[in-house]
């Protein structure tokens, strides 16, 4: 079975580095992933508002990349009163980082930090991010990524989709299309690579008593009864039939799996449209 479980791209969030919070005059204890907490703690509210409105739609922004910072993916964010900030989009982690702020037009601040390798998020910033994810409940941490995998699987029937979800679970999801005479049915399969929790990661606080597979099934189809689920199937789809693949045996030593028969495609109706 495969070893590649890349992080899922399930949207992104905005966060502040500790250096940026210091630039904004925020005291210790402010939640670095909370626009509202930061906004409440700083007098430089316009630049926080600009981050929230602009970077929540485009993570790299619309301004030119910043020069003289040693890389081409740091973007300026212009404040309304001449202040300058910069951001960096970490595609892998799904985070747009607010890296620093100067109330003047002082790009040298960012250039100096880049020269000292102090511009990007520090180990503490990344550690707080890791723990913050651990603090979120199952629905917030696992649900969005799992749903994204199901969406991908629905768009590419018979092709297993693999990802690490919520920095925690390595999942494989497939919608298997079954053609019966003139009608087509589909099954949804979910496989969890063992051990279920990525080494060193802490499960969500509300995931203690409930078996994992039941929790995952409830996340994708809350109305489905246990009788309508095939627990521990012997085989799983291994790829599109036209590419010569078919079924593979479940490796019970390395994964647990579940099959949801008669899965109907339910693509999200509004994804991509604007409100």
């Amino acid at each position, binding site marked *: 079975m495969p070893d590649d479980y890349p992080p899922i791209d399930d*949207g992104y969030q905005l966060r502040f580095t500790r250096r940026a919070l210091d630039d904004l005059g925020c005291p210790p204890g402010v939640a670095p992933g*909370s626009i509202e907490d930061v906004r409440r703690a700083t007098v430089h509210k316009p630049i926080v508002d600009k981050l929230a409105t602009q970077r929540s739609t485009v993570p790299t922004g619309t301004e030119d990349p910043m020069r003289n910072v040693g890389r081409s993916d740091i973007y300026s964010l212009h404040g309304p009163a001449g202040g300058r900030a910069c951001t960096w989009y970490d595609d892998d982690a799904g985070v747009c980082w607010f890296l620093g702020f100067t109330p003047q037009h002082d790009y040298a601040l960012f250039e100096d930090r880049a020269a000292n390798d102090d511009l990007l*998020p520090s180990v503490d910033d990344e*550690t707080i991010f890791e723990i*913050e994810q651990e*603090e979120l409940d199952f629905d917030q941490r696992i649900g969005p990524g799992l749903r994204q995998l199901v969406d991908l699987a629905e768009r590419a029937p018979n092709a297993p989709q693999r990802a690490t979800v919520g920095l925690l679970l390595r999942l494989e999801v497939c919608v298997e299309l079954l053609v019966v005479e003139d009608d087509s049915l589909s099954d949804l399969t979910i496989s969890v690579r063992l051990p279920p929790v990525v080494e*060193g990661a802490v499960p969500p606080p509300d995931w203690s008593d409930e078996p994992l597979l039941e929790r995952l099934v409830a996340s994708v189809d809350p109305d489905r009864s246990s009788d309508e689920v095939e627990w521990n199937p012997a085989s799983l789809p291994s790829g599109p039939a036209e590419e010569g693949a078919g079924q593979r045996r479940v490796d019970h030593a390395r994964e647990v799996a579940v099959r949801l028969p008669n899965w109907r495609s339910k693509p999200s109706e509004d994804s991509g449209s604007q409100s």
Partner: protein
Amino acid sequence: MRVFENHLENADELAAAFDAHSSTDGWDRTVIRFRDGDEVELSPDFVDFLAACVQASAEHKRVALVTDDERVSPNEAAALLGVSRPMVMRWIDDGLLESERVGSHHRLAIADVIALQQQRTKAGREAARLVAEEPDSPRVKTARARAEARIAKRKSA
């Protein structure tokens, strides 16, 4: 939602007055007197509400009046929550945020958005506290190891 300016006229004077009269005696005899002499006595709850607004204004904060039934678009919710619009749409799909369809558009109750925002803020504050106050705890150490691995991967890319 109605947003008020961040430092209303009289804010300092009013805040000082509320502060000076914040005893129970002061609260339960607070009245609004109209030009014609009519008076309406305010309940303690209502005085608390006014005092909070006045205090925020005196601290140069903007005050937004939002009622539970007000609704925002996914874009507005994304800005409030500090996440991307696709993330908001996924939370709607997952049932984390309830939305009402108005034509082809989604509308979300502001109360639901704020509740989710508060959950995430609480998680962030707890994470910041742990890293600052318990840097040698096993939990912080393992999280730090993963963070270091991610940074190393970033640098080698």
